[in-house]
């Protein structure tokens, strides 16, 4: 028997090959488009970095200048106690802001270096949130913002997560809710635990974020409001590092927002199974890693 094709089969085969070809072409086009997109992003990223460096100068220089000036005034000593107290408050507020920004910068650097170890402990979520809110008291008060905190987590319920990262995540969300709020606006924070997941939402009455910008806000160094006269302070790292930290502690962030009405950021965090494991070895799936004796081990 010869392996001859009938005309129909031949035509079918030709058609198949043509189809395959055009599919490949299509894929190639897609790949080129993707490459272009990545290229543009890299260029943008470089620009943003430059922007960040000039931006960070103001963000650091201005508070330091005020701290130096205010503390010098106090040192000179010719002022009444009330003024001195007021200066103390201002110095503290500036130093607090600096500290907060540095934490974001250092943590970003740690994450980019792959050296941000997890340290999981039992956390009282309510008291951490209370603590964060009161640490931003000065900024909240200054902008005449009403903050309500509704804690739906049972008393004495502890959640296993990395406190330091959790603290910074929530600080960033609150800081943004203050910064981008209107004068006299409000912020509502709700925390609850459902199916072993911690869910916290932070709702503000700020400028809101358009659909177009909803993905861009997580880009590093990117601030929607750029240019020489920025309305809002900051360095554009807050949400980037927040998202990166959430990935590390197995969490997610979602956003619903309407321009001019406000935004609701919601974080959902999975509970870590092993808390306070001081060997530093804790697995996310409950497996233990002490295999060694058994024979199935392959050695390389």
């Amino acid at each position, binding site marked *: 028997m010869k392996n001859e094709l009938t005309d129909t089969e031949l035509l079918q085969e030709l058609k198949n090959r043509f189809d395959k070809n055009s599919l490949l072409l299509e894929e190639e086009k897609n790949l080129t488009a993707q490459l272009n997109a*990545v290229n543009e*992003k*890299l260029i*943008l*990223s470089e620009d943003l970095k430059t922007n960040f460096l000039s931006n960070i100068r103001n963000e650091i220089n201005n508070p330091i200048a005020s701290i130096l000036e205010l503390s010098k005034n106090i040192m000179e000593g010719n002022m009444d106690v009330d003024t001195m107290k007021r200066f103390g408050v201002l110095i503290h507020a500036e130093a607090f802001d600096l500290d907060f920004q540095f934490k974001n910068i250092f943590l*970003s650097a740690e*994450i*980019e*270096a*792959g*050296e*941000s*170890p*997890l340290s999981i402990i039992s956390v009282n979520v309510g008291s951490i949130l209370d603590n964060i809110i009161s640490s931003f008291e000065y900024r909240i008060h200054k902008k005449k913002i009403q903050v309500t905190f509704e804690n739906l987590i049972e008393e004495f319920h502890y959640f296993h997560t990395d406190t330091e990262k959790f603290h910074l995540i929530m600080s960033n969300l609150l800081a943004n809710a203050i910064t981008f709020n209107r004068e006299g606006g409000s912020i509502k924070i709700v925390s609850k635990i459902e199916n072993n997941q911690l869910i916290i939402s932070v709702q503000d009455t700020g400028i809101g974020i358009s659909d177009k910008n909803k993905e861009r806000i*997580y*880009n*590093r160094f990117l601030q929607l409001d750029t240019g020489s006269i920025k309305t809002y302070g900051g360095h554009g790292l807050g949400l*980037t*590092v927040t*998202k*990166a930290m959430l*990935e*590390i502690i197995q969490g997610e962030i979602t956003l619903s927002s309407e321009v001019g009405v406000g935004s609701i950021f919601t974080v959902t965090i999975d509970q870590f199974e092993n808390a306070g494991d001081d*060997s*530093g*070895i*804790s*697995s*996310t*799936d409950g*497996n233990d*890693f002490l*295999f*060694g004796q058994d024979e*199935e*081990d*392959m*050695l*390389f």
Partner: protein
Amino acid sequence: MEEEIAKHYLYPSALFAEKAPHIVDTVLGSCVAVCLYDQKLKIGGINHYMLPFWNGNGLASPKFGNIAIEKLIEKMIKNGASVENMIAKVFGGANQMDSTMQIGNRNIEIAKEQLSHYKIKIVAENTGGTIGRKLKYHTGTGQVGMKFLEKTGII
């Protein structure tokens, strides 16, 4: 009696390279871990990345292969190692059966590409398939113990 060696559990998106010998444990699904070892200095390092390329979004962290491999090499060099003395072992990159994304394969590909760029020889590898892996890397000897996960689920 063997001396007690420090242990380290390596999380995804992190990397580990220290001068002192450690036993590093990690669990891989579609992720890939590159174990580097300087044969002369007898020190090692390991990464654990989830995706092949950083696409310009978010932080440029070792979550991404192209960054994780470069940073691991950099860190090894900082510890005194040199690229000429390095050998590599590559693990992981399982593919989810129902996924067309082939993230595992792409993760493996980037490791091979980058390592050959640096002319670092891959002396051992166990990659691909559909089953996750557990690794135990002794950074002082360069030896890697591997075991397949019992369940077929991808992490």
